[in-house]
């Protein structure tokens, strides 16, 4: 079967080109490492370059496909591969774009961050493999592939968090991440097994159709199905760092190397969400009552509860942190709550495309601004700046550019019109209004106000306060700086250029209904 890429007809597996780019890059890093195994040599640059190029390729190809209409109604429609186990459509491409961009930034930043560290090849390899897993999650179209790709993205992540073997924090973070991850994957697996028990199918659409026929025949176990659905929801909550399976997040993000925190909090979260979106919207639309009629298992309300709780817990806990990195970690939990609105606001009589599209756009912008924020922390760590807010005092006098970038990230995260975060935040608020879910709207307002408070604490430290003179910024690590600046520019440009991307998001979202 062939597909059409902007007029050129190509074999359908080409649609998976981004994923292949990740894999190839990963293999290449190992290859480079075998050639030049000793650390601290020219190989570092080569490895970083490989990773950056690989992820850039994935990013660009996915973006090109997105524009060219591959897998979208404009083109030849969704491309399904391996007997529909995988599907490439607007949604998957959109998220590969997110993952690709984040991976590229992270790898770029890592070059300076990993200076003098051993096992660099492994680092980049794991990052790329995790990225592969995430891009597959975006395409997964059956419970089996979903589970496998999720694990593929998780396992490397565990190792990455624990990358700094001699650093107690890193190890502890790795352990907690791993243990919580193990539990939640087993919960997910059990949930999948129950859904299988209730439906006997693995492919999402098949599950949906079978369930409806079964419901028609009356041999339908809402109890088992319900337990399964809830467990799947929670299993994915782990990936998206949503309450109640978020407990790993603060520690992992705080303990892990800053670039890894950036990677996990942006890309991994996005991947978890794309899987959740596709799974729940193609496998359980009728069960959730999206098609009208009263829901057998009201996962929409469940999502509402999770959304409210998640954003509240995340933001309130972030409000009183002393460490900047941990504050960002909690805020990332809070943002998971915002994005959950994409599922939570799918009430009846709502423009589903609008709701889901809003979440997708938020994830896209979030990819840049959050990654940027963590990378700035990486920069600070590189300079030997402490972790608490006070340690950032007066940093603007020494590194105005970086601090300006950080300010952009934080204000954009807070939803001020310095970056795309403004529009996406207000889109989400719009979605809640559109769905008439006033509770969500209220929670969003309260939390975003609170988030403004703790984000501006960093800004205050950087710009308002006087430096105590302990920190002396002597070197300006090129690649790390570049990564931060690029992220900042992207964040800012996403405000005026929002219109270039949002249509594809809304189209991609609408396809799922």
């Amino acid at each position, binding site marked *: 079967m062939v597909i059409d890429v902007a007029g050129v007809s190509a074999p359908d597996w080409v649609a998976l080109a981004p994923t292949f780019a990740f894999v190839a890059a990963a293999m290449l890093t190992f290859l480079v490492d075998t050639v030049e195994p000793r650390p601290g040599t020219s190989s570092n640059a080569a490895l970083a370059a490989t990773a950056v190029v690989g992820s850039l390729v994935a990013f660009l190809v996915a973006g090109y496909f997105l524009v060219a209409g591959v897998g979208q109604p404009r083109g030849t429609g969704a491309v399904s591969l391996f007997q529909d186990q995988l599907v490439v459509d607007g949604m998957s491409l959109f998220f590969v774009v997110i993952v690709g961009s984040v991976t590229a930034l992270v790898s770029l930043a890592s070059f300076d961050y990993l200076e003098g560290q051993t096992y660099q090849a492994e680092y980049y390899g794991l990052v790329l493999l995790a990225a592969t897993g995430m891009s597959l999650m975006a395409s997964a179209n059956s*419970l*089996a592939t979903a*589970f*496998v790709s999720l*694990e593929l993205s998780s*396992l490397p992540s*565990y*190792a990455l968090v*624990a990358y700094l*073997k*001699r*650093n*107690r*924090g890193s*190890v*502890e*973070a*790795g*352990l*907690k991440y*791993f*243990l919580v991850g*193990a*539990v939640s*994957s*087993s*919960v997910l*697996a*059990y949930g*999948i*097994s*129950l859904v*299988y*028990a209730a439906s*006997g*199918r*693995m492919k999402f659409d098949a599950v949906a159709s079978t369930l409806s026929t079964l419901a028609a025949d009356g041999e339908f176990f809402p109890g*088992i199905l319900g337990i399964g659905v809830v467990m799947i929801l929670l299993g994915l909550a782990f990936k998206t760092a949503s309450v109640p399976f978020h407990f790993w997040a*603060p*520690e992992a993000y*705080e*303990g892990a190397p800053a670039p890894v925190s950036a990677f996990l909090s942006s890309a991994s979260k996005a991947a978890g969400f794309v899987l959740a979106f596709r799974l729940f919207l193609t496998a359980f639309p009728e069960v959730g009552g999206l098609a009208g009629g009263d829901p057998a298992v009201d996962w929409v309300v469940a999502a509402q509860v999770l959304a409210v709780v998640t954003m509240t817990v995340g933001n309130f806990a972030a409000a009183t942190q002393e460490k900047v990195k*941990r504050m960002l970690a909690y805020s990332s939990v809070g943002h998971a709550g915002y994005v959950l609105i994409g599922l939570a606001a799918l009430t009846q009589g709502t423009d589903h495309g609008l709701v889901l599209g809003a979440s997708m756009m938020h994830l896209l912008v979030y990819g840049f601004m959050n990654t940027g924020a963590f990378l700035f922390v990486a920069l600070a760590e590189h300079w030997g700046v402490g972790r608490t807010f006070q340690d950032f005092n007066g940093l603007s006098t020494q590194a105005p550019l970086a601090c300006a970038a950080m300010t952009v990230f934080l204000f954009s995260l807070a939803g001020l019109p310095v970056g795309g975060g403004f529009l996406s935040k207000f889109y989400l608020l719009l979605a809640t209004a559109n769905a008439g879910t006033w509770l969500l709207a209220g929670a969003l307002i309260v939390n975003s106000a609170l988030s403004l408070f703790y984000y501006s604490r960093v800004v205050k430290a950087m710009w308002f306060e006087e430096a105590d003179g302990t920190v002396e910024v002597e070197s300006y690590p090129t690649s790390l700086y570049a990564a931060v600046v690029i992220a900042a520019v992207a964040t800012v440009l996403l405000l005026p250029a929002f219109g270039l991307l949002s249509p594809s998001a809304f189209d991609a979202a609408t396809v799922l209904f």
Partner: protein
Amino acid sequence: MAVVTEYYLLLSAAVFCIGLYGILTRESALLFLMSVELMLNAANINFVAFSFYWGNLTGQVFSLFTMALAAAEVAVGIGIILVLYRNFEGIDVTEAATMRW
């Protein structure tokens, strides 16, 4: 004669809960890991049983996947537990609690 599928469900549920109990009670990382294995296997029981019930092999195949992934998970897990041992002189998961709040 075939056993009624409900019983399989009960069995798997029991196994799952045992695993869960283990997680909640054990402080050794290794036992923690084992309990997780139990939970995964509980899932496997379901898969196999209902694969039989629905008369398709998907479930059985999935159980194979699960086992493989479990193995991989253990591999990564053991690695992490090793470094844990190095840094915290032990594998008590409650020891590694420097980061909190």
